[in-house]
């Protein structure tokens, strides 16, 4: 059951990812990307990370993609241009394929750590995923959290400066 679901969703995600690179109209690409993101959210649920699934949908599929689509509409360029691709498509295909081969080789040939931490499925069930995330974030990873706030500040200031019309 789980396996079937995995392969089905995986297939959808790969196909929609492929269409991101394929669609002539950027809007269609964006919609395909949203589909991929939703598939990933499904995986996150399957991996017992419901909170991550939620913010995947809210932040990625929601905020970021809305921003992107907004910009596409703002620039109002639709499907312009003679061709979607630049030169060297064949090379890129070979290269991407090679990089996948390399990745497959080290994934299949490698072993991940067997060390089992204390966060088992049962723990997630009993505590709740959100609480676990929150705990980790505000204890162990407090500093990265604060740095992230600076990062967002920088991004906001930067975006304002860059897109203002007048000095």
């Amino acid at each position: 059951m789980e396996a079937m679901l995995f392969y089905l969703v995986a297939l959808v995600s790969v196909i929609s990812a492929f269409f991101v690179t394929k669609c002539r109209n950027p809007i269609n690409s964006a919609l395909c990307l949203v589909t991929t993101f939703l598939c990933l959210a499904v995986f996150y649920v399957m991996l017992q990370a419901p909170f991550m699934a939620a913010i995947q949908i809210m932040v990625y599929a929601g905020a970021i993609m809305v921003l992107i689509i907004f910009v596409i509409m703002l620039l109002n360029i639709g499907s312009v241009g003679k061709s979607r691709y630049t030169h060297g498509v064949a090379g890129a295909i070979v290269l991407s394929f090679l990089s996948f081969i390399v990745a497959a080789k080290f994934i299949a040939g490698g072993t991940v750590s067997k060390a089992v931490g204390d966060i088992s499925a049962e723990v997630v069930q009993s505590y709740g995923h959100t609480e676990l995330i929150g705990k980790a974030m505000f204890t162990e990873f407090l500093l990265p959290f604060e740095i992230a706030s600076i990062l967002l500040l920088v991004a906001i200031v930067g975006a304002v400066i860059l897109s203002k019309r007048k000095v």
Partner: protein
Amino acid sequence: MENLAQIAMESVNFQAIMPSLVLCCFGMVLLLVSVFLERGRTAPICWLSIIGLVVTGIISINGWNDPQAGFAGGVVLDNFATFFNLTCLIAAGLTILMSDSYLHREGYPVAEYYPLILFTTAGAMWMASGTDLMTIFLGLEVLSVSLYVLAGFFRGQLRSNEAGLKYFFLGAFSTGFMLYGVALLYGVTGTTKVAGIAEAIRLMPDASSNPMIIAGAILLSIGFLFKIGAAPFHMWTPDVYQGAPTPITAFMSAGPKAAAFAAFMRVTYISLDSLQVDMSAMFWVLAVLTMTIGNFVAIAQKDVKRMLAFSSISHAGYALVGMVAWNEVGFSGILFYMLVYTFMNIGAFAVLVLIGKQGEDNLTLDGMAGLGYKRPFLGVAMAIFLFSLMGLPPTAGFTGKFFIFAGALKAGYVWLAILGVLNSAVSLYYYLRVMVYMYFRDPVEDFSWVKMEMATIVSILIAIAGVLYLGVLPGPVMELAKLSIF
């Protein structure tokens, strides 16, 4: 919940992030202050940011020899971090000094420029002091995002747009590879802590037969190699350096590069120590490739700013020699070299800032013709920086290079040292050409537009002092660099 707050506070150690904390506070205050200033008035912000840097510098120096760890092993303020913090602060300070008149000349007197430089520096500090890949990654991103903005700062100029976009796309692309590397290392070791990774790899019985480790290590390195501009991940460097505002180019070539080296060294030297043989061999090839490409392509350049970009690639190659050596001499050599490079390269760019016309259209070799006679001070200053970049004694460039190459020799890499020497012999050709134009050509222009801005002159003078001091009496600073190795 009280319990949670208590746990959270336990690992908090403000001492360990004090410099970056102060810098961020200054940055945010400056953002606020700039709101109340009339448009186009940036001088107060400029000077306040200098004050911020000085204060941060003092705090950093106070933390010398007093290592502070905190945030559950996410950050440590040791001598190593402090040395790099100071390097980045110097880079930021020199950059800000030359920026104000430049921004007014180019028509972008935007006060937010300065806080962004402060945030970049803070990001650099987190990279230098991070002991968790998460901290390092976020520091890198703060640094990168601010630099994307700064590189594209002249939003009305196509050149600046192009620089910003190229940097952004390639930077984000390399982030993808780097993250993949982090993920693999996390999968193999179960942690993202620098020390934890080292421990896990050491305990692993079949570490050498697990390709995931080496793949993760290489992919992680790529993020850093991209930032330091090592071949074949250097392609962005010339374009971005040429298109970005000149002070930003100066800053990019020194501060962020130093920070990238800092994080790179910490990660390789601590986490990946077990992989020394493989990594060292990779660095050997990359160092030679980087030096050679940088130097050879620089020969063909007519634009001085672009030429300095290629030269910066080759200097990254020299510094990589220290990584190949993988011993204290080589590593402390990199620390020292980054400081040296900060002075000499920012100095050279500061001269370019002054001699550029509005719109930066006078940075070709022909534009430099006769500079030595028309503007003797700038000529002499440029000559000193070029000598240092060439690596001629008794300037800092020589002592720095010698330090690094001595490390390589200690580890037995004679050929690498000789290739390095050969490369610096090649590099002479293009540096010398600038000198030839400055001194042996009749002036085409009269340089009447050159305004000797006080602040920029100060930054040139500081850079000259640094180059000469580190060239003639580098002993004390070398001592500090040696004390800074973990």
